[in-house]
């Protein structure tokens, strides 16, 4: 008996069941509201790992992967959309990230949410998210992916607004959803364009029928569609990715999304959901490679977001916001990678970033927990002794993100930068290096302000600061493992002159793209150009870290540190102001959408009431007043009436005698 398909379905069914059950009975479980949900996810993880094994290691489904259809979802005549799922190596890689971090976050949440009365809701939402996210990576057609895309948006909305009585949370949730919808606007149109062009939305050609990834390039080749159309489709689709992955200018929702509980930030807004855009662009690589301008655009947006977000991360005082901007920046890297054709590298960074950023967020949650829900880094400091496990794991993650070898970030980031350089995108590489410096700087600014230097913790709170419970620290520790090792395992092959593990896995997926782009698969030259680039990259990170440590360093320097910071701040005042104000994007949005948009809406309402409805009522009023006017002729005087009759007679008689008869 073949368990492959049921197993995949189980991946969806378990979290969905967890959601349903928790939503229905979770409230009655009180403290143990997590039981169903966490156990479901643990089982899901196991199932996922089996699937991953089958796919990546046992190679059970071949290069094409496993494709199957559950039922016909939308049989609207020609618009025939199946509910079909697929597992290939790209999916499997994502499964690892999603289920592993998902499971750890679930476990972590047991402790983190222990004192919140809404925890049943929280776990229900988390399971809903897991379902949606898994559907997203398993979906085998555009529309189903779009559905999952929206559903993860929903979970995100629900979880950001989890503490609904906080106005800021509610607003942030709304903002996240609406900004995502802006991206989805383009995404939906892109999908519509795809269907209009090729008449199907299935990703690849399978036994069930042809797929977009084969048909669309063929259409271009045969001249059925013009190149600009291909670019248009790619850009529309990319718009969705921009929204979901918070790329400039749709990045504004992600920092606000930190209003959600920290595990949510870790899972959704760092490790998984925000990567959906990256995943999608990678998945749709056959479309993008046919649209070179779109590729450049993707790279430009990515790298610009990277530097923009990094610049803002410099000055944020909220620990989670720093991480959020960092996430933006890292996502920018990934898109830069996708744009330059370094698909594997981008996915590599997705994986490593998922682990270390998840770890950072969970760690920050632990910190926040320790200092009694304080998120302002100016009210922290010198905590490393008080919460050692948290500190240790976060330090590892910070080193990783800074790109210091041999931790995970180093491999993935440098692969992106190296590929950019080698594929001819030197400007991407140059900016990337600058961002690498900045990354090192702001990450260690965070570490410094939080764990080192002088303590600014509220004196009342200080005595009670303690390490988090084991449900929280264990996930931290578990996440630290891949943070250290994933890079080596997946990308360490470069040191041995071999094809890396990840390249082996994803090769079949991106092979065709590389060929189309004309990228020769040159062997890695540790002693040549690659090595130089590697060193530059690592050095950039190290410079940033060093400078940061000098400013926010390990030692207690008292006033001296403040002087250093102020000196630099003053010298860079305009940049500093811009950074603190996040380049005024919120203000700009407020102006455009709240003020101008509101004014337009109110004007239209006025138009509706006064002009449209006014016309309707005006006609009625005119009728009425005409009637009132006419009734005046009924004077009550018989003589007047008779005169009226006589006049009528005269008109008629004159007409008959003089007009008609003549």
């Amino acid at each position, binding site marked *: 008996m073949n368990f492959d398909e049921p197993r995949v379905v189980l991946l969806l069914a378990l979290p969905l069941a967890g959601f349903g059950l928790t939503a229905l009975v979770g409230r009655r479980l009180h403290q143990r509201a997590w039981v169903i949900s966490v156990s479901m996810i643990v089982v899901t993880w196991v199932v996922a790992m089996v699937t991953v094994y089958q796919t990546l290691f046992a190679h059970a489904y071949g290069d094409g992967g496993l494709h199957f259809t559950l039922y016909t979802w939308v049989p609207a*005549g*020609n*618009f025939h959309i199946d509910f079909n799922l697929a597992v290939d190596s790209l999916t499997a890689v994502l499964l690892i990230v999603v289920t592993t971090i998902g499971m750890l976050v679930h476990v972590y949440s047991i402790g983190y949410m222990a004192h919140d009365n809404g925890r049943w809701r929280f776990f229900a939402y988390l399971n809903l998210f897991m379902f949606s996210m898994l559907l997203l990576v398993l979906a085998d057609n555009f529309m189903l992916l*779009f559905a999952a895309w929206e559903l993860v948006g929903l979970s995100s909305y629900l979880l950001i607004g989890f503490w*609904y009585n906080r106005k800021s949370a509610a607003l942030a949730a709304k903002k996240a959803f*609406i900004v995502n919808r802006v991206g989805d606007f383009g995404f939906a149109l892109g999908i519509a364009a795809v269907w209009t062009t090729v008449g199907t939305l299935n990703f690849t050609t399978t036994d069930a029928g042809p797929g977009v990834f084969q048909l669309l390039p063929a259409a271009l080749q045969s001249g059925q569609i013009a190149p600009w159309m291909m670019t248009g489709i790619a850009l529309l689709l990319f718009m969705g990715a921009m929204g979901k992955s918070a790329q400039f200018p749709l990045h504004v929702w992600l920092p606000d999304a930190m209003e959600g509980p920290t595990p949510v930030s870790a899972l959704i807004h760092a490790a998984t959901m925000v990567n959906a855009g990256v995943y999608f662009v990678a998945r749709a690589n056959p479309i993008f490679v046919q649209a070179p301008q779109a590729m450049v655009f993707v790279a430009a947006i990515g790298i610009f977001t990277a530097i923009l977000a990094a610049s803002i991360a410099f000055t944020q005082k909220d620990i989670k916001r720093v991480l959020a901007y960092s996430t933006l920046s890292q996502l920018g890297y990934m898109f830069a990678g996708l744009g330059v054709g370094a698909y594997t590298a981008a996915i590599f960074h997705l994986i490593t970033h998922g682990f270390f950023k998840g770890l950072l967020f969970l760690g920050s949650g632990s910190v926040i927990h320790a200092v009694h829900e304080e998120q302002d880094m100016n009210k922290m400091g010198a905590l490393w002794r008080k919460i050692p496990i948290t500190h240790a794991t976060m330090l590892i993650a910070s080193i990783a993100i800074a790109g210091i070898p041999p931790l995970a970030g180093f491999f993935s980031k440098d692969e992106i930068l190296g590929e950019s350089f080698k594929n001819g995108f030197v400007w991407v590489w140059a900016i990337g290096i600058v961002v690498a410096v900045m990354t090192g700087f702001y990450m260690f600014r965070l570490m410094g302000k939080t764990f080192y230097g002088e303590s600014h913790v509220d004196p009342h709170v200080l005595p009670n600061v303690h390490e988090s419970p084991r449900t929280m620290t264990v996930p931290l520790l578990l996440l630290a493992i891949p943070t250290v090792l994933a890079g080596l395992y997946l990308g360490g092959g470069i040191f041995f002159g071999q094809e890396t593990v990840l390249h082996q896995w994803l090769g079949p997926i991106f092979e065709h793209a590389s060929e189309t782009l004309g990228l020769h698969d040159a062997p890695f030259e540790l002693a040549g150009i690659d090595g130089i680039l590697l060193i530059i990259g690592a050095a950039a990170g190290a410079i940033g870290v060093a400078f940061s440590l000098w400013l926010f360093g390990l030692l207690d320097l008292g006033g001296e540190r403040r002087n250093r910071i102020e000196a630099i701040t003053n010298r860079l005042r305009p940049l500093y102001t811009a950074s603190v104000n996040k380049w005024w994007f919120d203000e700009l949005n407020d102006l455009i959408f709240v003020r101008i948009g509101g004014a337009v809406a109110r004007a*239209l*309402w006025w138009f509706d009431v006064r002009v449209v409805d006014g016309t309707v009522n005006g006609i009625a009023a005119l009728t009425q007043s005409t009637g009132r006017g006419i009734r005046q002729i009924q004077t009550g005087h018989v003589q007047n009436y008779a005169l009226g009759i006589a006049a009528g007679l005269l008109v008629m008689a004159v007409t008959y005698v003089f007009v008609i008869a003549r």
Partner: protein
Amino acid sequence: MTQLVSGLPILTLITFTPLVGAILIAFLPKERLNWIRWAALGTALVAWVFSLLLLTAFDPGQSGFQFGEVADWVPTFGIQYKLGVDGISLALVVLTTTLTWISILASFAPIKERVKEYMIAFLILEVGMTGVFLAMDMFLFYIFWELVLIPMYLIIGIWGGANRIYATIKFVLYTLVGSLLMLVAILAMAYTYQANTGTWVGAFDYQKLVEFGFDPTLQFFAFAGFFLAFAIKVPMFPFHTWLPDAHVEAPTAGSVILAGVLLKLGGYGLIRFAVPLFPQAAHDWAPLIIVLSLIGIVYGAIVALVQPDLKKLVAYSSVSHMGFVTLGIFIFTEQGLHGALLQMIAHGILTGGLFLMVGVIYERTHDRTIAKMGGLAGVLPVYAAVFGFFVLGSLGLPGLAGFVGEFVTIVGAFDFYPWVAAVAALAMMLGAAYLLFMYQRVIFGDLSDFLKGIGHHLTDMTRTEVVTLAPLIVLAIGFGVFPGLLLQLWQGPVNDFLAHVVPGALALK
């Protein structure tokens, strides 16, 4: 089952069961409120069961009409009592019978005055609505069409809010203007038929008229008459202004039926009558209608953004949503029509649900001002969840009914002309904006002072309220996950429709 049903005049049974119930209720003593209520609910349930029987016996996906019933009425003019059902009307009939019993159930608590008259009006309303969907004779159709008007007039006017009289008169007059012009068109059509064939036989018979093929001039004006009637009912911009007033003043159940079924009458009319009868004129008028639909979609959504009143907001959202219906119809693509139909059903379910939700809170606070609300999630968790469900459904969340209709329409529109799809898709953003804006202000945040003042009356949803909403939730999910249930039902009629139009004849690409 099919055997059982085919022996019965099932369509007549569905249509006139409520009338029988109404007559029975007329003989109940008016003090016996519960007898009256249960009798009304029972009647509506019987009609519902009949409609479900029909559903089971129906052969889906077929072209043409099934279960036809025909009898001469006024042979002098070829007027017949002729009923028939196809996939489109079947779906709408079931929607009608479902929403009717839900509405009646939802009226148990709020309607305390003149219950007898209310229930009678409601059941007669159901007769009219069902009849419109089943009538196969233009004359009969018109009669049912107008029959809908009066009960609704009374329901808004008697059991409505403070400004109910203004609203109800506006509703009736506005609708009447349109429908009377449609009457002129119907008669002109019948005459042309009679003049050309020399016989009155079939002059009002829908099927014969469809095959007849009218000359372009008549088509042009007759279409205008039909279109105006339907556009007002849908309602399309700029004929929509009666809707916010009517919704705001109508009692909850009235709003549910208004949004859930009455607006569908317009869409149904366009699909069933306006286009197949006058295909040439439909093509001539289509560009204008498409533009108006697009304006309606965007305009309704933008105006909804700044509405202070919950019902008004939902009303304007209806203008936006129904814009998809008219858009979907007049782009003359298969996807467009599928989407329009699906959107009609989905809008009926979801907006009906939204109005019920507004009704629930109105029942407790006697207010609907968004600014006075806030923080309901804390005190009414079930309410918040169910409300959230309908809000999400309404903004087109995948997995719920609203999504597929909207999406398929956009795909169809893109096939027709990409910019049209782009404008229509703006509603995805705007819809999310106004609905979530409203949801955030009503449900999230701290409990508002106004609501604190309500005190212990602010209770969570009662069992009855949950029961009324549960079917809608089930349907919303059901049609979201398995839209094929509906799409396959009306594939045949959709093909028939497309046979009348020239797909792509309008395409400007």
